[in-house]
């Protein structure tokens, strides 16, 4: 019981710490985002596309094959539904969802 009460005391502290961390991180990133968007717009579109496709393939191989044989590429609009379904079912991250969708619809 002592362990439980100490855990219940520890969690609000952790919550407070997390909130502070979230606020600090968002404040620090305010200025950086402008630089990043400028950099990304100046980058070559095809190079970016290639790197996204490579990253998408990597994420597709590491995530999809964990449970089942690698599926084929479906038509784009079906793929969008499948990837959304897998984001929920297999708790994919948002980045995984976007990269995999990009790779599977190329």
């Amino acid at each position, binding site marked *: 019981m002592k362990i*439980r009460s100490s*855990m*219940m005391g520890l*969690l609000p502290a*952790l*919550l407070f710490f*997390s*909130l502070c*961390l*979230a606020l*600090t*991180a*968002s404040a*620090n*990133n305010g200025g*950086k*985002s402008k630089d*990043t*968007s400028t950099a*990304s717009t100046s*980058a070559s579109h095809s190079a970016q596309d290639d790197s*996204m496709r490579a990253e998408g393939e*990597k*994420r597709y191989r*590491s*995530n999809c*094959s*964990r*449970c*089942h*044989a*690698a*599926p*084929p590429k*479906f*038509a*784009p*609009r*079906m*793929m*969008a*539904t*499948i990837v*959304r*379904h897998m*984001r*929920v*079912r*297999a*708790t*994919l*991250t*948002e*980045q*995984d969802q*976007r*990269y995999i*969708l*990009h790779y599977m*619809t190329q």
Partner: protein
Amino acid sequence: MKTFARVTIKFASLFSLCVLCLGMAFGQDNALKDAGVAAIKDEGIKAVPFMVNYASYFTRVTAGQVQASPSFAPLLLVPLGNKWLIEVKGSYADTFARNSKGNYEGTMSYGLAYAQVDYIANRYVTLAAGRFITPFGIYGERLAPSWIRALQATPLINPLLSGSSLGGMLRGGVPAGTDKVHFNYAFYFSANNTNHIVATDRSTGGRIGFFLPGPRLEIGASFQQLLQADRSHSAGIHAEWQPNPIPLTLRSEYIHSSGLKGSGYWIESVYRLSQIPALRRLELAGRAQQFYADPKLTKALVGKLGALGRDTNEADFGLNYYFNSDIRACASYGRQFALKKNANVWVMGITYRFFTPFGPTGGGL
């Protein structure tokens, strides 16, 4: 015991809040890294509703008893806008077995695996409501469909948990501060429902996991607290690893239930012979498992759980042949070992799936 349940619920709520906040904190850097990826979001692909139909036919021979069972499981996926998804999966099966007169007799069964509405609230949280598969371990949610599972025989520990729940769920996957570690979670609350087709227990619980995309390793833990009847709780751990150099998958799950059920584990390995061109469509699978029934469990209830005896060990070996990504032939042999009795478990069959889109799909690839 009520205090324990209250503490569990509070703990789960506070923990999920911590997870959300930490995700927001550590996710900031990834948001910047993914500035380019944001462009993909609006590249104009509109999701289309469609139905995936799973059909299978299996012949099982368990301790000399032959069963033939054709089954059909349609899954309907309806995306709405960019954030909503409706998922409904039903199941229908006929099981033919010899009756006392020696004639084959069919028993029909049908059910609703899940019927849920998902709302992707943000990059950290997805809300789900309705009837859903209880998020516990990896087998129920990810590996159970017949076209996915490497061995058709269900693990002995599977009936220790309620398969589906009715209520609400918070879930998601986020990079844990770095792309090298992904954190995933699912917390739920379920209400009691006594309808025989969609029966659920009043319970709460959840699962957390850490996935390392580099070494392709996932480890996680699950917890379930029953809020009715004997108010038992179950805890489990799971792990999955796919070594990069070889097409091998190793999985394992352990469950301990405090109620009148038991505990046990399974370890499974699946090897796809993709490195040998002539055998690239073939997959080898093996599983070892042990089940320990609660000492108070009656013989009849042990049998109902699918185990041969109070303490049962089982070893299974299987072969899967992929004709293509939609059609697969499966065969496996297993042997159950219990005190003073052993039994063979043979399974042979085929799984098939096909897609029915309800709208233009945007062309083939």
